[in-house]
């Protein structure tokens, strides 16, 4: 696994650039990750990201967009508006989690 420097600190990532260590993430890092893919984080983004972090901690896997709607309470349509085109993997990236592997 490569180590890369983001926001002045070294973090472990996979070949695509997704963080691989849950504990290396914090909210400052999220801002830097978001900026790298052209997203400016608002409260609405944070609601999704905090749900992702909590759900991953509880379930051991990254929630899908469906689950973010059904359990996290953020409609899929809003997720597309917040994380354009590829909400599932973009929000996982910013939350420092692996891509969701669920199909739905």
């Amino acid at each position, binding site marked *: 696994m*490569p180590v*890369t*420097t983001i926001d002045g600190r070294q973090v472990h990532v996979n070949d*695509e650039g997704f963080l691989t260590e849950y504990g290396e993430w914090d909210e400052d890092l999220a801002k830097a990750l978001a900026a790298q*893919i052209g997203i400016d984080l608002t409260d609405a983004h944070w609601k999704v990201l905090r749900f992702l972090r909590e759900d991953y901690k509880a379930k051991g896997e990254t929630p899908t967009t469906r689950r973010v709607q059904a359990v996290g309470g953020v409609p899929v349509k809003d997720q597309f508006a917040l994380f354009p085109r590829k909400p599932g993997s973009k929000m996982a*990236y910013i939350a420092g989690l692996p891509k969701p592997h669920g*199909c*739905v």
Partner: protein
Amino acid sequence: MTTTQPAPIIPKFDDEEDAGRKLAIICSKGNLDMAYPGLILGNAALGEGVETHLFFTFWGFDMIMKSRMHDLKFSPAGNAAMHLPIKDMHLPQAIAPAMTGMATKMLKKQIADLGVPEVPDFLDQIVASGGHLWACRLSADMMHIHDTDLRDDVEGIISAAQFIEMTKGAQLLFI
């Protein structure tokens, strides 16, 4: 092996290769089990930023008809791959026709247990994700179905030629 990268590795979310990618899915079946493949793949494609069109034809109309979409059925009849819940024993086909109600209930439960929505709800999600729904002109004419019989978010009843024109350059799936 650990390698240190001087520059950050940024995922290629907006790859040029993917720009303009389109998927067209023809949904021609009205059985509960055959409704899902198109929904799952269409939903996945939308999540990857792919422009997605679902075209409903023949029995596929049951997925988008207001009066039928909540009541799709799964029948083990005629399905040689249908097994009993116990291991790999085949379901005797002679009793299969009588088992539609039970089999539908079981399948719905298995789908719900995975957090997968029911068909109408799934189509809501696909539309919310930017997917497009179309209905087949010939099937509608043949079965005397009007746009008022269909989900309000079906964008139109179109001919095969219009569909072909609209999906120029798309990858195509027939289900």
